[in-house]
């Protein structure tokens, strides 16, 4: 076996991020307690520079490059996913700063672990073999488990971390088991080779691969949090510190979309019929249970957790329609990336409202928010309508793309079903708006105006207005998603 030197230059953003994470770790140890905010700035600067490096790669590498012995790919999909991941994580950390500070969650560690999680996602975006996919996924997951557990004095957070860890480990196990089957059938773990080897597979090989596919999908859907692998989602979302929920609900979904595309579309097109069927069942169940169970929630974080399950169901629709339509995959990518922006905004509002020892996470806390802080209520309104898919917010155009792909793929019944569930879902988003705008605060609850730090206000405004502006001018963003998937 001859050894070829990998092209290190294509992995510069990842390498840079790794170095900076290590440096931040070292610096943090020597910082006095009061100055640990510096770690936060190092982490944020790293994200900004990584983003710039990735953008420059977009210009320098017009065609895909596969290197590191076939484990690593740099194509448009990887680059654009990395850009999204950096931007979303930047916002997630920016929102976290005050929340983490106020609750004395170990500050430096939080951001350093976060940076390692981002690194894991970067690896996932570029992974081109099962080995690197698993590597990235575990780097991400282990960092997230630890981050959830960082609030040591909170029983809920500890419980959530425990659940997250046990369920996550189970999912990783399923994924590995599935990978081993595919490896057994093909003798390869590299995406491109598997794809080629499976074109002319024997019936026996085919059967093992389908079985393996089942386990791999189970593992992936665990990470996404889709029905029937969703049980951990509400508990973890509700129990984790809100800024952590924000992070779990946002960037990892983009990375998970990336590896799903690699595995299903690039490695396993030969069993496409099988994974389409499996995903259809999962998507319908997710949309149904996510939307229906969200109605029963009184805790906003739990409600949004169920809503995220439903949204994952919608995103899967794009992947299902993908093989038989021109824009299915890009519609799914547009859906997941805009959902992430919107979800991050909603959790951000919860986290910045949770001040001075009071968590702002019950539906009743939102009564009369319009008279306490009209701008924040308006931002939440935009985000809620976007999740419900009401034009002119971006959520509508995300759904429009999916429906167009479904109709094109002759899955009109699925499109109608998706819309029906969207109506069920609209109810609890409307209820949220109702509490904020139509109701007065409960007797005894605080009804004074809410003042916010200016940096939080700006960040949340960017986020909320993005939900509207991306809806009014979605063309560029849609094109970005299309470029990455040609």
């Amino acid at each position, binding site marked *: 076996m001859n050894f070829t030197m990998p092209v290190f230059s294509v992995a510069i953003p990842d390498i840079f991020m790794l170095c900076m994470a290590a440096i931040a770790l070292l610096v943090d140890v020597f910082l006095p307690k009061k100055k640990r905010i510096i770690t936060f700035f190092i982490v944020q600067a790293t994200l900004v520079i990584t983003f710039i490096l990735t953008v420059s790669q977009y210009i320098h590498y017009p065609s895909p490059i596969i290197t590191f012995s076939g484990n690593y790919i740099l194509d448009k999909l990887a680059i654009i996913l990395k850009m999204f991941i950096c931007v979303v994580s930047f916002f997630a950390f920016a929102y976290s700063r005050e929340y983490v500070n106020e609750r004395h969650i170990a500050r430096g560690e939080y951001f350093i672990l976060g940076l390692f999680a981002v690194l894991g996602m970067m690896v996932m975006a570029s992974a081109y073999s099962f080995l690197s996919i698993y590597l990235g996924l575990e780097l991400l997951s282990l960092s997230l488990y630890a981050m959830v557990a960082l609030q040591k004095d909170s029983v809920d957070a500890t419980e959530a971390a425990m659940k997250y860890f046990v369920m996550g480990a189970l999912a990783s196990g399923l994924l590995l088991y599935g990978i081993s089957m595919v490896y057994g059938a093909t003798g390869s773990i590299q995406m491109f080779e598997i794809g080629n080897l499976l074109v002319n597979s024997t019936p026996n090989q085919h059967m093992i691969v389908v079985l393996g596919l089942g386990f791999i999908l189970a593992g992936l859907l665990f990470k996404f949090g889709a029905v029937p692998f969703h049980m951990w989602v509400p508990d973890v979302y509700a129990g984790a510190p809100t800024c952590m929920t924000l992070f779990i609900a946002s960037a990892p979904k983009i990375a998970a979309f990336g590896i799903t595309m690699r595995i299903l579309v690039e490695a396993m097109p030969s069993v496409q019929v099988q994974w389409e069927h499996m995903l259809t069942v999962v998507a319908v169940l997710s949309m149904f249970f996510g939307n229906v169970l969200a109605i029963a929630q009184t805790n906003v974080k739990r409600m949004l957790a169920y809503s995220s399950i439903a949204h994952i169901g919608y995103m899967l629709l794009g992947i299902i329609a993908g093989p038989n339509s021109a824009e299915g995959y890009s519609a799914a990518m547009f859906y997941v990336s805009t959902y992430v922006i919107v979800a991050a905004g909603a959790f951000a509002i919860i986290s910045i409202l949770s001040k001075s020892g009071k968590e702002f996470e019950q539906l009743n806390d939102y009564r009369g928010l319009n008279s306490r802080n009209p701008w924040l209520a308006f931002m939440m309104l935009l985000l809620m309508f976007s999740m419900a898919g009401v034009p002119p917010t971006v959520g509508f155009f995300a759904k429009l*793309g999916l429906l167009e792909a479904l109709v094109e793929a002759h899955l009109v019944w699925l499109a*109608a079903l998706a819309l029906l569930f969207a109506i069920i879902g609209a109810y609890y988003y409307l209820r949220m708006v109702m509490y904020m705008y139509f109701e007065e605060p409960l007797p005894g609850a605080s009804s004074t105006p809410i003042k916010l730090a200016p940096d939080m206000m700006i960040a949340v405004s960017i986020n909320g207005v993005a939900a509207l502006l991306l809806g009014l001018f979605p063309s560029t963003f849609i094109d970005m998603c299309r470029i990455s998937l040609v």
Partner: protein
Amino acid sequence: MFSNLPLLSILIWLPVLGAVVVLLTGGDKNAKLARIIGSSVAFANLMLCIPLYLYFDSSSYALQFAENHLWIRVYQIHYAIGVDGISLAMIILTNFTGLLVILAGCEAIKVRVAQYMAAFLVMQGMMIGVFAATDAILFYVFWEGMLIPMYLSIGMWGSANRSYASIKFFLYTFLGSILMLIALLYLYNQTGTFEIQKYYGLALSSHVQELLFFAFFLAFAVKVPMFPVHTWLPDAHTEAPSGGSVVLAALMLKLGIYGFLRFSMPIVPEACEALAWFMIVLSLIAIVYIGLIAIVQTDMKKLIAYSSIAHMGFATLGCFMVYDIIRHTANYQDAYMSLEGAVVQMIAHAFGSGAMFLGVGIMADRFYNHSRLIKDYGGIATRMPVFAAFFMLFAMSNVGLPGTAGFVGEFMVIVSALQAHFWIAFVSALTLILAASYTLWMYKRVFFGPVANEHVAEFRDLTWLEITNYTLLAFGVFFLGLYPTPVLNVLHVTIGHLLTQSMPLSIVH
């Protein structure tokens, strides 16, 4: 000078921009400023309709003042707007009602004034957008986008049961629209474009036509609203602030009819012809059965809401009678009159019922607990003679007295229906009796008789702003009732063209 201006875009976006400015005035300490900005924007918008009317070429059915920009490249969605005769009339009506509602809000709304003005201005802009859009997705965006401000206005300024009514309103209309979206996507997959005009005359199998018909039917029937999907309207109307009720009655219901005219009839003419009996039956049920329901209402707003449904039954009847008429008489002139009667009925109903909703608002604002129940009132004519006179006029228009707006449309529809089918005309003519009974009986109980209680005794007559409002509306009622020619002129060519487009080949040959 106006030929180069994007007049329609200005009409759509000026109110939205105005809404942003109004919101910047902040809380209720600047309420006066918010009122001034809100009404001047609405007034400016109405003034912009003058060049729109003057420069409109009523001898052409082509889309005028057209603008077209590529909006979303992937799906070839265009920001494409333009007007023909029907949409021109509806846009002017929208601006007229918009100003009215804002002016009424200046008087009636005391809390969150800026947000109220903003909500209604955005609603006005969205509604003009619906009437102007010539791209299916743009149409849908405005169509749904309008729900957000309406939802907020019912919920924020409505009465006791407002949360329930607003959510019911939103979900009901949202549910109606989804199948339309799928129908539009299907048409896009057939033609590769979202341009509505390209869908006309498409060769679709009759099975597909029927499916599309029902998809559109659900969306538009909920908006009209037709029996049996009308149940959201009484709730929404009763709980909404009177401005919201006016917009609902005068404009939002018209969107349903407009949808039938713009989508159902020209896109799936064969299905429309085949299912015309279904639409006619539903229309007659609305006219008679809902009219009977209106009689027994104890809540004034509910009564007017049910009367709106009955009146809209006339508009749908006029639309879908055309097939029967042509089959019986082979005379396009009669069918033409039926369709035009439906459009006139749409416009006329805006004045009559809008004014009556305002009237209930005026009374309820003066009553200590904002009651809308008929039994709480009585003898108002002695305390508010000017108001009673005005209200009489609008009640008469609602009844369909010759000389008022309400007469023209109903008369045209009944007369042309008579050409095709005596009993359909007969049943629909029952409305003249029913409308008279519920409207005038309510009028009698509320305005005549002894003064009901000490609260009514304290009522003061209309303020100058309310008189201005009512004078404008009275002008509309008489204008359409006595000299409808300017309106009909605008409609003539467009409706004629629409009629030829909506005829299935089986009838033409």
